[in-house]
């Protein structure tokens, strides 16, 4: 139940729906992963970097004021926002760069939406001295200029994608096309638990460090498993990582929260588990937002990281098997949760994470006092301040009001 049901599949989901050219590379990747996953030297290098470079283990923190405000279960934060580069994404890129290095690949490519995975990839590529190319929808390069600069500072080339809808799904297409053409010397670090097998399993395994740490830390702080784990779900890597060790344990509720965008009824959302139909996107069978004719629809979410029209195949499986439950939260609700968390806990969460926080109030209430709920705080919100400012109407006047009069030019420099 906790592994694939058969090689490359989670029930009917997953598989390898890709051009023939890539099959060889996927088999090569699978072989390398099987060879190194239990290799002591590989594990040692990964653990050392996880500790010294990423800052693991990340803390499990009691969110006291939020607990009091909601009046239900105790709220705990798994602080992935404290991982290097500001989100859980680095867990996956670190594992994959180690694999790429052992496979002798000198060129790294990746897609990115908001830029978090792009930054995490550029970061490990810099650490290992690899050439790095990041595909990013043109639309996103403008919305997330800061992350484009970060990637460039880290030595990566950022290629704006002009095809299709010019967003994340098109960036994935473009990365796959690059890989098809350069498969000999290039490794594709996919950013989530999506894509053709073996990617969903490899990314899951590298992210499972989140859940493994939650398990150990809960044992220490709570004396046993938490009663619920809540995480946001775009394509689903932080959620699957947090859930993984707990799948199948009846005493632990696993709750994934998708983006309801402007509301499920508007059709402008990223809730592929709630509203998608079975289909194939980017090499895997899963739930996909699509038209009746099978054309992929554009997703919408205020958080770029949830703005993806499909979900990883393992989530589709967990949903159908009743092993995890899934809900959705709108843009507006996420913004409210972002403010609540910022003011009560002194943590500005990523907008993605804010979706999980909003829904967690409901779970905490349902569980009731004395129970324990972990929210996977998947990323920090620095990248989102501009989006939040625009959405909340925090204009320059208000900033002035809060921060006092402008400093004079002579003191500001």
């Amino acid at each position, binding site marked *: 139940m906790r592994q694939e049901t058969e090689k490359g599949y989670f029930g009917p989901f997953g*598989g*390898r*729906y*890709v*051009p*023939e*050219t*890539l*099959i*060889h*590379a996927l088999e090569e990747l699978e072989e390398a992963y099987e060879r190194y996953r239990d290799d002591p030297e590989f594990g040692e290098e990964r653990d050392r970097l996880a500790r010294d470079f990423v800052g693991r283990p990340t803390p499990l923190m009691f969110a006291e004021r939020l607990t009091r405000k909601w009046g239900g279960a105790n709220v705990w934060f798994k602080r992935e926002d404290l991982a290097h580069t500001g989100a859980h994404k680095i867990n996956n890129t670190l594992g994959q760069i180690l694999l790429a290095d052992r496979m002798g690949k000198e060129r790294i490519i990746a897609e990115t939406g908001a830029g978090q995975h792009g930054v995490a990839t550029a970061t490990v590529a810099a650490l290992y001295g690899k050439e790095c190319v990041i595909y990013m929808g043109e639309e996103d390069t403008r919305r997330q200029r800061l992350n484009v600069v970060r990637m460039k500072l880290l030595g990566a080339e950022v290629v704006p994608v002009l*095809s*299709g809808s010019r967003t994340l*799904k*098109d960036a994935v*297409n473009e990365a*796959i*096309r690059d890989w*098809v*053409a350069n*498969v*000999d010397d290039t490794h594709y670090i996919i950013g989530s638990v999506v894509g053709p097998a073996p990617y969903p399993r490899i990314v899951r395994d590298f992210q499972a460090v989140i859940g493994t740490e939650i398990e150990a830390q809960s044992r220490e702080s709570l004396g046993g498993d938490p009663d619920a784990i809540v995480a946001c779900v775009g394509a689903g890597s932080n959620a699957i990582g947090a859930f993984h060790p707990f799948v199948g344990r009846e005493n632990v509720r696993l709750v994934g929260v998708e983006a309801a965008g402007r509301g499920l009824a508007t059709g402008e959302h990223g809730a592929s588990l709630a509203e998608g*139909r*079975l*289909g*194939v*996107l*980017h*090499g895997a069978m899963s739930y*996909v937002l*699509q*038209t*009746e*004719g*099978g*054309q*992929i629809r554009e997703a919408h979410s205020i958080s770029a990281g949830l703005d993806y029209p499909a979900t990883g195949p393992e989530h589709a499986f967990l949903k159908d098997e009743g092993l995890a439950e899934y809900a959705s939260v709108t843009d507006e609700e996420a913004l409210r949760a972002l403010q609540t968390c910022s003011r009560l806990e002194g943590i500005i969460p990523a907008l993605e994470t804010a979706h999980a926080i909003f829904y967690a109030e409901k779970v905490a209430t349902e569980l009731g006092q004395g129970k324990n709920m972990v929210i996977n705080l998947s990323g920090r919100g620095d990248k989102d301040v501009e989006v939040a400012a625009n959405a909340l109407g925090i204009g320059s006047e208000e900033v002035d009001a809060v921060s006092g009069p402008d400093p004079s030019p002579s003191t500001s420099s």
Partner: protein
Amino acid sequence: MNGDRVRGAFREGRTALVPYLTGGYPTLEGAREVGEAYLEAGADVVEIGVPFSDPLADGPTIQETTTRALANGADLDYCMDLASAFSGRVPVVFLLYYNVIFARGDERFLQEVAEAEVSGLVIPDLPVDEAGRFAELAAAAGVAFCPLVAPTSTDQRISRVGELATGFVYCVSVAGITGVRDTLPRGAIELLRRVRARTGAPVALGFGIGSAGAAVEAAKEADGIIIGSKLMRLVEEGGAERAGGWLREVREALSGLVEAGG
């Protein structure tokens, strides 16, 4: 069976010419004109691309045509109508991505394309590992399955592809996406030879054939030549007429090869 027509188009001593067009490009009506121009130029099979929003295996030239075609309102039903316009004269094969098939339902899709007299299917994102059941259903529906092999395919995989191919084997000339290339990629001939040695099915070469010279070169080993991006670019530049004119030159160059070769 309808599917047998695909193999019938690959005749001894003549290289089958398989031009591609995107259904619904440049316009819904214009695509029909492109197909007519291909027939006049001596096409042996017409390959119709059913537009998909996320064509993974295609380069920018064909992507642009599919984006335009979708904006024009082209869909699977339209493409089946379009196929009917040509299928009385030459076999028609569809190139399409699996999600478009899956959304219709494998069995219903096969029944409908068979009724539209579509003879064969090329599905770039349905490698043999995923194709087993679908290939069986296609065989039962009398629609030829034309799987792909790439330069990165192992000999063992090539043999499996050969077993599943009820139409032709589609050899991808290069590890890459579709697009116009002037010369035949190195390794293409080598791949054709490897495939030939492992299947009795006709072997066609595609991806990046952008000149009559490259077509002639490929024809020394291939039973058929598939040309897509180059023709779509010519349609963009000068309409159906320009594409048809160039295709005729290729046809003549290939005929010259046969005569010269005896």
